[in-house]
């Protein structure tokens, strides 16, 4: 029975449980006021116990069964069919495709369920091709046998699943229904259930972090099994080739990332900071109410737009100035994609980020400090430079670190604007590439995920994750440690 039908049955039982549980509770007393909880809670109690355990079990079963069955079938495949783990997984996906193809063939009536055992391996490909399941190669005897085993085990598993889930649902239903009486503390039970649900939702945040760390960690370990870690961290050449003999040194990528982020910060920090100072200290409320939201529009524009802007507008513009035959006639720039292009555009993107964070921090400096400074005869700018800024400094440093972490993790602008060549160069008009851009290029396309050239992306991701996390933690630490408490 398909999981959806099973789910529908459990749902029907749940609804029935709600109605019947409520009725039983109301019927068990002569006056509704004598019930411990409101009548609806009795219904919900039965519904909850019928639904939650059964559906939880169903969900786990749906996820776990294919893994268990695949593990079992993997044992059937003789060693002669594969040499490496990668090949084994290819064989396994063949097995799964044949098995699901046979299901399709039976569903369409091309094969009778009884024919399956007597199938000849040589004709399977044509048979399945006839029902729209295309196989890459002829099916070997072993693969067919494994596929048949896979099907048989899965079918048995499905039957057991149906029975177990229904038993659990009915048991939960009966337990709660028979236990329903006027004195049952139904509300407390339901509320405990809801509380557990709320905690589970809060745990998803931890699960996500765990998922990120584990998926990065396992693949990184696998990568370091195929490629030496010291060459990855200290190699100065990045030249992946899927044919083998790749050199995967992270240093050129880190340098590109750093260079682009530096240029971006050199653009964003002065502009953002001065904009924040002007908006919070000088601007009339009218100017502020117009300029602030307009700057923040820059923050709401998706990064793909900035990427396209870098590729098609800023890049050609810079080539027109610094390129061969450009206005300056210096010929520093070879193509539109360069560190400068990506850095400038990323700087524009970060302006509102820096300005709105600094704005909040400057506004948090108490007015009394300014008044004290004015009282001593300082001009407004002297007050800002010598009183407000020092007071706001930890917060502003924190904001800049957060902006740096954003710049390092930014992907679309560098993918489109920075170029693809990994090189260690000081010329800001050269094309360079970054960690994020290489993650994209190594993991898109039909790469074999078991090769070091694809796995390296996970190590790059791990590096990126650690660096941005460290920057964020550092920013938080600085803000907490050095923040002046005024009140």
């Amino acid at each position: 029975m398909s999981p959806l039908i099973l789910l529908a049955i459990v749902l029907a039982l749940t609804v029935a449980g709600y109605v019947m549980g409520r009725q039983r509770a109301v019927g068990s007393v002569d006056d509704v006021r004598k019930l411990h909880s409101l009548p609806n809670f009795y219904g919900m109690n039965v519904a909850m116990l019928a639904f939650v355990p059964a559906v939880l079990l169903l969900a786990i079963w749906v996820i776990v069964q294919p893994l268990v069955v695949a593990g079992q079938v993997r044992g059937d495949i003789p060693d002669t069919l594969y040499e490496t783990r990668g090949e084994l997984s290819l064989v396994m996906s063949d097995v799964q495709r044949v098995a699901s193809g046979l299901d399709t063939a039976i569903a369409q009536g091309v094969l009778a369920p009884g024919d399956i055992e007597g199938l000849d391996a040589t004709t399977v490909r044509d048979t399945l091709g006839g029902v729209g399941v295309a196989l890459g190669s002829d099916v070997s005897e072993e693969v067919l046998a494994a596929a048949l085993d896979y099907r048989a085990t899965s079918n048995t598993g499905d039957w057991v699943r149906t029975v177990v889930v229904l038993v659990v649902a009915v048991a939960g239903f009966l337990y709660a229904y028979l236990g329903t009486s006027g004195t049952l503390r139904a509300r407390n039970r339901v509320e405990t259930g809801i509380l557990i649900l709320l905690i589970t939702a809060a745990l998803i945040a931890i699960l996500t972090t765990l998922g990120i760390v584990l998926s990065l960690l396992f693949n990184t370990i696998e990568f370091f099994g195929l490629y030496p870690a010291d060459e990855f961290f200290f190699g100065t050449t990045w030249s992946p080739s899927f044919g083998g003999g790749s050199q995967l040194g992270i240093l050129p990528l880190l340098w590109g990332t750093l260079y682009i982020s530096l240029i971006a910060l050199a653009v964003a920090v002065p502009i953002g900071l001065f904009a924040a100072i002007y908006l919070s200290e000088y601007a009339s409320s009218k100017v502020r109410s117009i300029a602030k939201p307009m700057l923040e529009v820059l923050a709401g524009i998706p990064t793909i737009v900035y990427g396209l802007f870098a590729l098609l507008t800023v890049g050609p513009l810079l080539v027109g100035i610094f390129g061969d035959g450009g206005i300056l006639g210096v010929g520093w720039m070879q193509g539109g994609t360069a560190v400068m292009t990506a850095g400038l555009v990323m700087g524009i993107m970060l302006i509102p980020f820096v300005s709105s964070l600094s704005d909040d921090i400057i506004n948090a400096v108490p007015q009394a400090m300014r008044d004290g400074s004015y009282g001593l005869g300082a001009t407004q700018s002297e007050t800002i430079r010598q009183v407000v800024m020092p007071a706001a400094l930890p917060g502003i440093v924190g904001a800049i670190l957060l902006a740096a972490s954003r710049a390092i993790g930014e992907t679309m602008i560098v993918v489109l604007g920075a170029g693809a060549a990994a090189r260690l160069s000081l010329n800001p008009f050269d094309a360079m590439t970054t960690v994020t851009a290489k993650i994209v290029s190594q993991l898109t396309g039909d790469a074999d995920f078991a090769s070091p050239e694809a796995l390296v992306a996970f190590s790059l991701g791990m590096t990126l994750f650690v660096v941005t996390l460290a920057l964020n933690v550092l920013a938080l630490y600085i803000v907490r440690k050095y923040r002046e408490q005024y009140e």
Partner: protein
Amino acid sequence: MTDATNTGSLYDVDARTKKRNAAEKRFRIYGMIAIGLGLVFLVALLSTIVVRGIPAFQQTKLTLPIALPEETLDKSGVRDIEVMKKVSTFGYNPLIEQALADALDANGIENPFEDAKGLKPILSSSAAAVVRDEVLANPELVGTTHTFEILAASRVDGYLKGRVTRESVARDNNIDAAHFDVVDALRDAGIIAKGFNFDFITGADASESRPEQAGIGVSMLGSLFMMFVVLGLSLPIGVAASIYLEEFATQNRFTDIIEVNISNLAAVPSIVFGILGLAVFIQFMHLPQSAPLVGGLVLTLMTLPTIIISTRASLKAVPPSIREAALGIGASKMQTVFHHVLPLAMPGILTGTIIGLAQALGETAPLLLIGMVGYIASNYPDGVASGFLDPNSAMPAQIYEWAKRADPAYYERAWGGIIILLVFLMTMNILAVILRRRFERRW
């Protein structure tokens, strides 16, 4: 004090004061320049988008009466669809070229080429398929002359929009300046004209060689299904998590870990979420690649921190007196939250959710890793299930895909796609602002 010896009037500004006042002025001007630069960048960005994207909403089309002779299209004469399907687009091409040549004759324009085939570069390579589909849908057209609206080739389209010039096609193998002479004459005759490009908004993506046919409609549906997933998962989960953290959690180590986690997740680069999606949803759970379902799951995880942070803020904004009043008349803690606090916080929660959705809608990087790029979104999903599970693209991924293609005609499409994307984002943000203004309560 030195100034005590100064006997001059206070109105006479001394050198030091002048210097200080000048510094003051300079400082203020730096601030203005910074604001000015920010606004200039904004205007430059927006005007580039508008100027370069607007042409995508116009498309050059030819209005041609095409003769559909029975002897080539349906020899049997019985109008059997299955038989007529055997005539491929190659059978239709000469008819269209001939129709164009005839139109030239009728309007007294000289054909500079040897035969009708020389005119082929003016027409989109999709023309034959369009005519064929129309004929197969209405078999009675065979034997008559029917007026079709067919697309012009992208170079012709670019020529009329000023993107392609006679000089720029000098080394182009596909088309040469003589074709543009014909196009000019055809435009004067009213056969070729630019019109609003509705197909760009509703249509499907096309292959690399037919930019004139590409549209963003299918990937818009992909984005829509992704947003359903994000909304359906991140709103309930985010609200539940916030309620727990804000209303029930006691201050302990466990709660601290969750809170630190959430604030860290908000700062994790989006590409890392893409890696997570690839490793967990595709490699481990074997969900279909390029499916909006997977994209939606990844974006949900990305949006959750945003929604949790804004939901907690709006729960916090509900004054404690509301809770105390409810508890005082005998409501349980759970009833207090769900019957009183949550409804009052709802406008704020919805505003935060819409802003989170807008962020998710424009996010591209994670989608690259789960395979929503490199896939040509040329088929509409067949239904709801296929909308979630079949490979599709999404708006930002589609824009990226176009930006990568070699033909500059696709850049125009990419800018046009950005306009559509920004219109969606703007609508969502305005909706959020209206919601906030309309329902926000100050206590």
